[in-house]
């Protein structure tokens, strides 16, 4: 029956030959290659749960009075946006579950992107011919951060309103164009008339469409350029050793999807996230202590908290304080991320094509640089909860600030030195086993026959 249907389609549309070729494509095996898939499947779940939420969410700042089933807010004035979120949480069947699953998926999504990016960085998978896909990946991270922030801000609760106010102040600190851009985006002075509907349009239509499109290109490029592989017996620059797309790799990938769904559903059903009913509706004159953003914005929050109170005035302009930690720092971060492949290529004069991955220990400088960078952002992230650390450890908030400032400067240097040293030691210790492997490979001709397909259509081959 299915076969007949397939033949019917094939006779009219064609492509069975094409499909067969693609389905037998080889993917190399390493559990670390599944990190990107976790991000992909989080995105799928974000779209599915988000669609449910969008049905009940109202992106409006019109004032209403809550009369729903959650007694501690009954009779309280609030915006329609916050009102719809409280309704969704307490009066829509499975509403809170989907809200929580969506939020957990968002946190894990960005975390998976960061781990995937780290894997690609430390193994040198970004090198020629894959620089373009690296740039697309960095763009995906950037858009995900904006997308997450926009989603977090839609709820119009006390914490997200505070976050939006900070974003407003940061935007205003951009020299020359700051105030104009801000009032353009917000639609007038804070909070502006249009900000909610713009955040909604961005979060629900524009950014997800961009993400989906770029993810498509990202995966198509992996397919076209073939996946990188770790060095090993029978693995060369010209072949790919691994499992076929159909059925082995597809089964693995589907298993990953099922497990991602299971973990996110368990978190969504069992662990409370963003209980906005405690935070209350946003009022610009109200603020709470202990306010923090979602984790992926924590590094910016931390930078804002510990950056010294510098401000410069000259030629009738002022360079306001938030500019340095919250505009300059993220700009530099992403410039370094975008241009790292070019930078490394120039410094190492390595212009060649690489399909075989590095072990991090074999590239001590790159590994030390990456580890130092990560540690810097971890310190900034910790600084984002500086007041909670002060309360929990029973120390003064000022001393945590000075400690974290010092840590932001010292820790990356220490981490770099230690990592470099460690890599050198590990590289020295692993020299012999690696050579032993090579000898075994030479003694045993082609232990695993390299498949003919895989690299066949790679543009790299044609060079």
């Amino acid at each position: 029956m299915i076969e007949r249907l397939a033949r019917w389609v094939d006779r009219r549309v064609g492509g069975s030959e094409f499909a067969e070729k693609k389905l037998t494509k080889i993917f190399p095996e390493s559990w670390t290659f599944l990190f990107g898939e976790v991000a992909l499947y989080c995105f799928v779940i974000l779209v599915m749960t988000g669609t449910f939420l969008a049905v009940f969410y109202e992106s409006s700042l019109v004032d209403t009075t809550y009369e729903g089933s959650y007694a501690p807010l009954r009779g309280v004035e609030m915006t329609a946006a916050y009102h719809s979120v409280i309704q969704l949480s307490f009066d829509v069947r499975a509403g809170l579950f989907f809200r929580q699953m969506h939020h957990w998926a968002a946190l894990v999504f960005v975390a998976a992107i960061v781990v995937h990016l780290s894997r690609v960085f430390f193994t040198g998978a970004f090198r020629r011919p894959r620089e373009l896909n690296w740039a697309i990946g960095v763009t995906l991270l950037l858009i995900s951060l904006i997308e997450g922030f926009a989603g977090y801000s839609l709820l119009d609760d006390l914490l997200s309103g505070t976050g939006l106010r900070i974003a407003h102040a940061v935007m205003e600190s951009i020299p020359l164009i700051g105030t104009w851009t801000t009032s353009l985006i917000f639609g007038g002075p804070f909070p502006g008339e249009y900000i909610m509907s713009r955040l909604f349009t961005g979060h629900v239509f524009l950014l997800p469409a961009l993400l989906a499109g770029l993810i498509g290109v990202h995966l198509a490029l992996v397919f076209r350029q073939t996946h990188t592989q770790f060095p090993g017996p029978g693995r060369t620059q010209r072949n790919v050793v691994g499992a076929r797309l159909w059925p082995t790799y597809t089964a693995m990938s589907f298993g990953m999807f099922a497990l991602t769904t299971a973990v996110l559903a368990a978190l969504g059903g069992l662990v409370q996230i963003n209980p906005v009913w405690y935070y209350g509706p946003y009022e610009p004159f109200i603020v709470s202590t202990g306010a923090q953003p979602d984790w992926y914005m924590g590094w910016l929050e931390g930078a804002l908290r510990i950056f010294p109170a510098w401000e410069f005035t000259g030629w009738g302009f002022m360079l306001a304080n938030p500019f340095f930690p919250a505009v300059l720092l993220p700009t530099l971060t992403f410039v370094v991320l975008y241009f790292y492949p070019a930078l490394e290529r120039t410094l190492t004069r390595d212009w060649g094509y690489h399909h075989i991955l590095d072990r991090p220990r074999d590239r001590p400088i790159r590994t030390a640089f990456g580890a130092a960078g990560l540690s810097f952002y971890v310190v900034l992230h910790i600084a984002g909860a500086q007041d909670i650390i002060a309360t929990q450890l029973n120390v003064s908030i000022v001393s945590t600030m000075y400690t974290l400032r010092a840590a932001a400067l010292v820790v990356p240097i220490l981490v770099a030195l230690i990592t470099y040293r460690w890599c050198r030691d590990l590289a020295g210790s692993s020299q012999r086993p690696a050579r032993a492997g090579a000898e075994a490979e030479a003694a045993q001709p082609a232990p695993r026959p390299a498949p003919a397909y895989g690299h066949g259509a790679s543009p790299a081959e044609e060079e």
Partner: protein
Amino acid sequence: MAAVSAAAFALLAVVVAGRGPDASAQVQPQPQKPRPEAPSAEHLFQRDCAYCHGPQGEGTSRGPSLEESGTAAVHFYLTTGYMPISEPDEPTRRREPAYAEEEIDALVRYTARFTRGPSIPRVEVDPEDVAHGGELYRLHCAACHQFAGTGGALIGVEQSPPLFRATPVEVVEALRIGPGPMPAFSEEQISEEDANAIASFVALELQQPTDAGGISLGHFGPYSEGAIAWLFGLGALLVAAAWIGRRT
């Protein structure tokens, strides 16, 4: 040999345990069992309070005068265990009260002779007031005590305490007297009904939270959620990836 060392350990444990209560007695006055006759508040006051606050509550160089503090303050500091302290510089922290309830009542009656100011408020917790109390709480209290009442950091070493153990009477007393760095709110700023509403919100919502979504993670805010997302969310999925990646 093992028996000898076990015996030595047991002896050591007895010695250490025996020292425990003595050591703590030096820090905190031992709660006195109320005697059959009424506890002598004067005796307690002169023994534990007068050294810093003066024999008539007039204050000394070690402690402030009690003339303006009112019985609300006397009651608040004694029931929260903030007082008595053994050193003037000792930070005020919530402890088990040093006195029995009758003794606190007697001390309140005793100090009422020389103190003027806010008296112990009458507070009625009313579920109808919770929503309004929540609004007032966010407006007046959340900036220091946090949206869920976990407390928070203030400038310097001071901290705003968590509100999970505060009784409704203590909440209103704190409002009126402003303990530590907290400002005192007059009845013009927060009326009696509003103070009642805040106490109702603290007692009925903050202390019995509606954790509709599951495990609460302590209401610390998004950072605790981030930690869970990394440890249990991504962590579980990385383990899953390692497991699946080894299947082929």
